[in-house]
């Protein structure tokens, strides 16, 4: 047995995570002294923390630093994802305050929880050891379970939290078992070493233990990113969770799941590419198709967006299946634009909703476009982007993902993806049709637009349109952040 050497500690690598954790803990303390009506200020403090973290991350772009004896790395790939997490966290926080006030569960703990979840995601993106990835994932998941059930007095939120918890823990079991088998087959948990062990000893698809490990880990990750057939929890959790948290959950954790998934498969197990790409092929097709077809007949808009987010995970899997530079860059670009469009759409849903979420049926949007022309147009922009219609960012992202698939020779996958995307247009359009076509049934009370909301929507609109019209810079960044 080898002795334990104290690993070289390189705090600079995890500085952003440390800062964010410290801010979160400080907020927990401050929270005790803040009156219930003023909890919103905690939100602004946490945004300040996020901005600080962002400022620390940006100078690190372009360099690749390892730390903690190779269990964690800060490279472009990680930084790109971290920026996505931080942006989505900040945008979700912007829309949280008013929502909590309306729902009457104004507790300040939500902000530290969001920050902890973000730290977890950041660890997942940086982790180069199965252990770090697992820990990041758990920090994220445990926070998310609470966030999903945050509205304690609302039975739907309770149910969402509990369901998420049970299925999340269940999927963690699979992920861990996969990690254990991979460890058994290669004798290490470090991603780089797994790859070099496989390369040196010529372990390949004939090694059943490794293949089983790969499949079980993929299952675990598929749960986390809500890929069919492991998506059953998604609609319930998204529908029941507080809407700002749904927005948060549908973007950040999904991106984090993909980040870790990509690192494990692309860096640790490139030797098994034929196996995992055929596995992902099936997952991608199933995910897109199930997501889109089920979304077609949803009445509840949150649920519809939940299925749509499943479908989007499917498109991302298309790029993933390709496994080449274009596909991976596509994943990065798509996740970035998805953050903006999805959170933007959820922001509008919060505005339209009433206390107790009675107002979340598609038919409640009747006449919305006339009542509030500017909000209506913003919503249309988000929906168009989700549908992948130019010139929104969603189109460029999809274009790039499918290009990757075609380049890798997965023509049929691209065809199926495109047909799915055509079907998806229908349910997004349906919302727009209600907005502009139907007369409003009655006057509805909606949350007053606060500066925070306006800011969030503004960021979202800019984030959808600018990468859509001038994607050059963003594509370049994504290409530089690719793992190979």
């Amino acid at each position, binding site marked *: 047995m080898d002795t334990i050497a104290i690993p070289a500690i390189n705090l600079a690598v995890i500085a952003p995570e440390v800062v964010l954790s410290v801010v979160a803990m400080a907020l927990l303390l401050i929270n005790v002294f803040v009156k219930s009506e003023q909890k919103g200020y905690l939100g602004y403090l946490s945004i300040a923390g996020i901005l600080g973290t962002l400022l620390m991350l940006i100078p690190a772009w372009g360099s690749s630093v390892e730390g903690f004896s190779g269990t964690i790395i800060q490279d472009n790939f990680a930084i790109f994802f971290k920026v996505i997490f931080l942006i989505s966290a900040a945008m979700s926080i912007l829309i949280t305050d008013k929502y909590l006030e309306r729902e009457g569960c104004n507790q300040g703990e939500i902000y530290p929880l969001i920050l902890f979840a973000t730290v977890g995601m950041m660890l997942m993106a940086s982790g180069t050891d199965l252990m770090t990835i697992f820990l990041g994932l758990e920090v994220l998941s445990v926070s998310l379970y609470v966030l999903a059930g945050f509205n304690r007095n609302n039975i739907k939120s309770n149910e969402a939290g509990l369901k998420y918890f049970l299925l999340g823990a269940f999927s963690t079991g699979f992920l861990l078992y996969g990690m254990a088998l991979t460890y058994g087959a290669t004798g290490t948990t470090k991603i780089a070493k797994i790859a070099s062990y496989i390369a040196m000893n010529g372990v390949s698809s004939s090694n059943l233990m490794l293949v089983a490990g790969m499949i079980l880990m993929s299952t675990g990750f598929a749960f986390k990113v809500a890929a069919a057939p492991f998506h059953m929890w998604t609609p319930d959790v998204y529908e029941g969770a507080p809407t700002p948290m749904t927005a948060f959950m549908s973007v950040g954790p999904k991106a984090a799941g993909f980040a870790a998934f990509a690192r494990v498969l692309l860096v640790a197990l490139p030797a098994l590419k034929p196996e995992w790409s055929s596995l992902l092929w099936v997952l991608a097709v199933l995910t897109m198709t199930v997501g889109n077809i089920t979304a077609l007949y949803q009445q509840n808009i949150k649920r519809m967006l939940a299925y749509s987010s499943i479908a989007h995970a499917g498109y991302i899997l298309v790029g993933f299946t390709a496994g080449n530079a274009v596909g991976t860059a596509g994943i990065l670009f798509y996740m970035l634009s998805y953050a903006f469009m999805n959170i933007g759409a959820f922001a509008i849903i919060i505005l339209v909703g009433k206390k107790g979420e009675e107002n979340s049926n598609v038919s409640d949007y009747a006449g919305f476009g006339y009542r509030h022309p500017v909000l209506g147009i913003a919503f249309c922009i988000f929906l168009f982007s989700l549908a992948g219609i*130019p010139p929104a960012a969603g189109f460029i992202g999809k274009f*790039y993902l*499918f*290009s990757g698939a075609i*380049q890798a020779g997965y*023509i049929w996958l*691209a065809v199926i993806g495109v047909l799915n995307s055509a079907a998806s247009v229908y349910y997004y*359009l349906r919302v727009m*049709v209600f907005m502009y076509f139907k007369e409003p049934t009655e006057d509805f009370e909606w949350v007053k637009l606060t500066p925070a909301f306006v800011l969030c929507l503004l960021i979202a609109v800019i984030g959808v349109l600018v990468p859509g019209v001038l*994607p050059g810079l963003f594509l370049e960044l994504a290409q530089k952040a690719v793992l190979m």
Partner: protein
Amino acid sequence: MNQIPILTLLLFLPLVGALLLLALERREGMARVVALCIGLLETVLACSAWFCQCNLPVANAPKGFFLFEDLPWIEALGIRYTIGMDGISLLLVILTALVTVIAMLTSWRSITERVSLHYLLLLAMESGIMGVFLSLDLFLFYLFWELMLIPMFFLIFIWGHGRNIYSAVKFFLYTLIGSLLMLLAIIGIYLIHGSQSGIYSFGLSAILGTQFTSATGLWLYAAFLLAFAVKFPIVPLHTWLPDAHTDAPTAGSVILAGLLLKTGAYGLIRFGYPLFPEAARTLTPLLIVLAVTGIIYASWIAFAQKDMKRLVAYSSVGHMGFVALGIAVWTPVALSGAVLQMVNHGLTTTALFALVGMLDERTHSRQIEDYGGLWGKVPLLSAFFVLFAMASAGLPGLNNFVGEFLILAGSFKVAHIATILAFIGVILPLVYTVRLIQEVIFQEERRPLTLSDLTLREISILAALAIGDLYIGLHPAPLLEILKTPVALLTGGSP
């Protein structure tokens, strides 16, 4: 590149106008006037492009293009903002500007709710269609191709009647599926060309020489053809068209028939044939058969229609069948005829839809059996009706005759039997048109109708179209002159 970026102006003026209308949400009268002004300005701009033809040759531009603009856009992907205008584009651009103005005028009174949104959509669509006719970069082309879809969907959906939801969705899904497959084919060409030459580009002139293996070329061409055939519409894919027309508001029908159908034909001329000459030749017999089937079948069905709008819609399918035939045989004469026929069809069918819309506004019926004896009551309207109906039937001296004649003359050498069959397609429209005119205009009045004759606005619409019809019918030489160079270049002859 010339000093004033006319093409960019052409592309974005309507879009800017659409944004302007956003601000005029509540002021409907104002919105109408602003939209019309933008439309007219666009028409003037389009016509001014006519006088740029002497520019030739333009530096860097592909042969035959007298207006050309090229700027880098998304360099990471080799996508450029490349737009250019040759003779074919010129005619279609002018047609687009004109038909849009007419669509605006036809909906002047009939659209009473959400007026500014209506005009906004018309302008946005104009921008999209202009983009399709001007783009020389496949990616750009696809963007505009999609852009023109959405406003049309909303036009049918919001202001349509009858089964408008069904029709709008059907229209949308048909065209979207076609165009998405085309997108995949575009990506495929891009990648194949990139791997062959090392330069990844979507530019048409860069891609033109790409060699495909015959199977790949066939698949890629099939994807393009599918997208274009849906828009065309070529017969088995035409079923969305009558529904969309029947339920669309007049302006929607006018744009749909006048412009949207042309984009499919244009795409085939500009991209389909030049990019895949070999595959196109392989599929030519199929296209010819489908075109001729379309001509005869559509005329046959048109004969049985009771709804005037549906009748005109089916006659459209027939006319576009001629265009398809002209393109399929790909001889200089037939191709000029096809382009000319596109313009003709744009003018004539627009007029017919406008007329049906006017009748509908007056009596709220489009059924043939509800009318009769219009001649005595509304002579002016009846006169225009007869004129345009005869033009549509291909009466010599009017525009459609010229186009059809050229197509038939050009295709006879290549495809005898098809041409002879298509000739039947020239006669059939006469039958249903004469029946239409007889029943609506001349027959005894079947039920008392109170009608007023045309207003000044309506007269100006119809007169403008009638002038176009007569001009092309009697003196098509200038237009053919414009088409000569681009058609010769496309078909591989010397200009």
